[in-house]
């Protein structure tokens, strides 16, 4: 019964979103402001209707209503409650529901938040948001209906894919979606700016915080996915250039370019068309990301059932959204001539330009590697895949280049940097970079990537420290504050700048983690029996037992391993080989011990009558990858919640 109510609510929402699209446009044409108001209520009501739909689905999951096909496909009576709720986004249909629910929530917030302050663009804004809503709701109602019933009613469900039965499942997909959907807001504002002809800097200023929010949500989602893959898939890495990882990485890359390039428009009124272009691309890639992951066109741990009918719809919807975006941009581009030209190649503008160039090259690289196989398949009916070395070859120089710019950009002057400016800001960092490289050599780093990394990381660190020091000293001298107070004043009076620098510090920390755990990873894969011991760098790992353990919906063989260092006991590790009862699917559960921000990582991929196979890894400093992510998040948080009263930059 509930499920029918939910279904009905979603169908009504579909109709209301049509009103949301047409209402504001007619209201503008016929000069009837009430129609815009009606559309606003439609958007608001949609949020409640989709919430009803979500509630109905969650209710069916919790009550094990396997007459609902979607529940049957992604849940099981033995599934822990925790995962029953998360099972909602364990498949394609439910993911779309989650997406559209977040969209209605965001749209409602935006519409009410900016109703008074942005009356001129509001009708277009509502219309654009409703178009997106309409596209998704039509797909849910006509092609991917999670409310469909099944007859005869099966006794039990097929269970949530065991790989997805993990606490991260509760947070990782919603985080990604907050990011994807979050980008719809600057996109809608950009479109509204194009339609209304208000092409100044206003849309950028209004959406600045939304963009940051979307960006950090996407960043968190990606990093969480990496950590999840790291301990769940058990191969010891966190990034494998899997098509699905790529799908979320592409909007991130272009979104990051956008995040930086809008600053040029704010300060110098340049890059106007470019910024519009970037946000349209970012949102289009968010849509592509959503669809690629769940529609089953790509091969990955994330994709399951495939329905070719959906593919065509998705393609048409994408084409429509992109032609709407780029079409309007082309029509309006004549009005977007920026009057200001770049003064010099040695300037902040130019650093931003190269920043964008690097991010875009990176995005194109990923795009090509991810979608070329699909293209080949369609045109030549041959199957092909692109290996990680391709991505690594491009990303190493791109990442180093971007890092270098990260050191130069914040400190170099706008317009034209004088020799004096360069000397003052970069002489010391260059010297310290040389010292850093020498130090890296002395502690035994010999790889080019490692040395270049050390050089650039010490360069950028110095520029950031100098930046903080410069601001604090200024305040300390001027008002005779002590340095803590001076630092606080400098920070809060220019919070946007310094919060940005904190995010940059996070990036540096992450880079150190990536370099260390990539170059200095030690791996051993060996067959072992009880009593055997292996040596991994300074650690001795000894197998002492194997036992049966039982969970709520699985049984497992659990290995008992003891780790020693120089004869002293360090820890005990308990990797498992699980079999999930309902689907009879095996999974490998890793055991991890943290030492000095690094990991001793153990999995037991095979258990046989005459022993087990063990994969043992040492990943030095690997935790820095996620700690860096946390610092990036802190920076963005401080940026979003900076006080408005104080000067920005």
């Amino acid at each position: 019964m509930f499920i029918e109510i939910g279904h009905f609510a979603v169908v009504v929402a579909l109709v209301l979103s049509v009103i949301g699209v047409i209402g504001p446009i007619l209201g503008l044409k016929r000069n009837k402001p009430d129609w815009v108001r009606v559309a606003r209520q439609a958007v608001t009501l949609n949020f409640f209707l989709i919430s009803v739909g979500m509630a109905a689905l969650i209710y069916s999951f919790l009550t094990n209503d396997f007459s609902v096909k979607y529940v049957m496909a992604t849940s099981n009576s033995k599934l822990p409650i925790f995962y029953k709720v998360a099972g909602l986004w364990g498949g394609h249909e439910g993911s779309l529901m989650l997406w559209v629910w977040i969209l209605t929530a965001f749209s409602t917030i935006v519409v009410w938040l900016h109703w008074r302050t942005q009356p001129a663009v509001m009708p277009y804004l509502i219309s654009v948001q409703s178009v997106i809503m309409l596209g998704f709701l039509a797909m849910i109602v006509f092609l991917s209906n999670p409310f469909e019933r099944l007859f005869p009613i099966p006794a039990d469900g097929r269970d949530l894919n065991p790989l997805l039965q993990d606490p991260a499942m509760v947070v990782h997909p919603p985080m990604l979606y907050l990011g994807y959907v979050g980008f719809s807001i600057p996109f809608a504002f950009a479109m509204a700016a194009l339609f209304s002809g208000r092409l100044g800097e206003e849309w950028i200023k209004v959406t600045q915080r939304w963009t940051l929010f979307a960006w950090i949500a996407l960043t968190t989602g990606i990093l969480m996915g990496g950590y999840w893959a790291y301990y769940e898939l058990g191969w010891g890495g966190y990034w494998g250039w899997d098509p699905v990882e790529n799908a979320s990485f592409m909007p991130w890359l272009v979104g990051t370019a956008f995040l930086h390039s809008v600053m040029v428009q704010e300060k110098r009124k340049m890059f106007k068309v470019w910024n519009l272009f970037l946000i349209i691309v970012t949102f289009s890639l968010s849509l592509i990301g959503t669809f690629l992951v769940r529609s089953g066109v790509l091969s990955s741990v994330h994709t399951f059932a495939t329905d070719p009918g959906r593919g065509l719809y998705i393609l048409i919807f994408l084409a429509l959204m992109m032609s709407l975006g780029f079409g309007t941009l082309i029509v309006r581009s004549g009005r977007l001539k920026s009057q200001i030209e770049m003064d010099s190649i040695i300037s902040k503008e130019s650093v931003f330009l190269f920043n964008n160039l690097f991010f875009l090259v990176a995005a194109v690289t990923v795009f090509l590697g991810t979608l070329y196989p699909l293209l080949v398949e369609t045109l030549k009916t041959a199957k092909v895949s692109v290996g990680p070395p391709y991505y690594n070859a491009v990303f190493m120089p791109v990442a180093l280049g971007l890092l270098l710019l990260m050191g130069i950009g914040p400190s170099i002057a706008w317009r034209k940097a004088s020799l004096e400016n360069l000397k003052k800001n970069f002489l010391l960092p260059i010297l310290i970079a040389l010292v850093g490289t020498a130090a890296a050599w002395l502690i035994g780093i010999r790889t080019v990537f490692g040395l270049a990394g050390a050089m650039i990381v010490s360069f950028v660190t110095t520029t950031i420290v100098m930046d903080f020091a410069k601001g604090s000293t200024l305040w300390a001298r001027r008002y005779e504050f002590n340095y803590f107070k001076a630092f606080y004043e400098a920070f809060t009076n220019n919070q946007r700048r310094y919060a940005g620098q904190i995010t940059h510090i996070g990036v540096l920390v992450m880079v150190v983690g990536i370099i260390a755990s990539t170059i200095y990873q030690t791996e051993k894969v060996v067959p072992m029996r009880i009593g055997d011991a292996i040596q991994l760098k300074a650690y001795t790992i000894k197998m002492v037992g194997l036992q049966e353990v039982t969970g709520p919906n699985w049984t497992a063989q659990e290995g008992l391993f003891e780790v020693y260092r120089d004869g002293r006991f360090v820890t005990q590790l308990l990797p498992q080989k699980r079999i999930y009862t309902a689907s009879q699917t095996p999974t490998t559960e890793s055991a991890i011990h943290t030492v000095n921000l690094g990991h001793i990582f153990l999995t037991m991929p095979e258990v046989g009558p005459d022993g087990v196979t063990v994969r043992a890894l040492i990943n030095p400093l690997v935790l820095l990858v996620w700690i860096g992510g946390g610092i990036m998040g802190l920076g963005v948080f401080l940026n979003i919640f900076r006080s408005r009263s104080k000067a920005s930059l």
Partner: protein
Amino acid sequence: MTKGKKIGLIISILIVAGGLIYLGMGQFGQNLVYFFTPSEVVAFSPDYYGKKVRVGGLVVQGSVQIVPNSLKMKFTLTDGAAAIPVQFEGIPPDLFKEGKGAVVEGYWDAEKQFHSNMIMAKHSEDYMPIQMKQAGVQLPKKDFLKTLQQ
């Protein structure tokens, strides 16, 4: 900005972008791995010997032979029309099983053996619990190889 400076800027953009694209393109061709069926592999001309490819098929029932105390094993992969012997060293994925689908990455040699150290296995469309199979619930079966390749 003077004309000379503008040209300088454009040239430096082109150099950076060109360098990166050159790097990417160079690696792109080398890292393309094509997918074949066992029938195609059996018919490989010597040009293909030693080239990295992926092959998808069913793991033949009863064909898996594990070499004790090592990471080596042998099995046969078939697409119904032809079968190839696979020599594998490494860790097979959790879903690797006799009678199920698998994709192996490696190379075919003149001795008509396939050498691999990477296997990818996947849930197929008929992934369902035992109870349902017993109850006779049938789910539509897609073209087997197609689900594999995706």
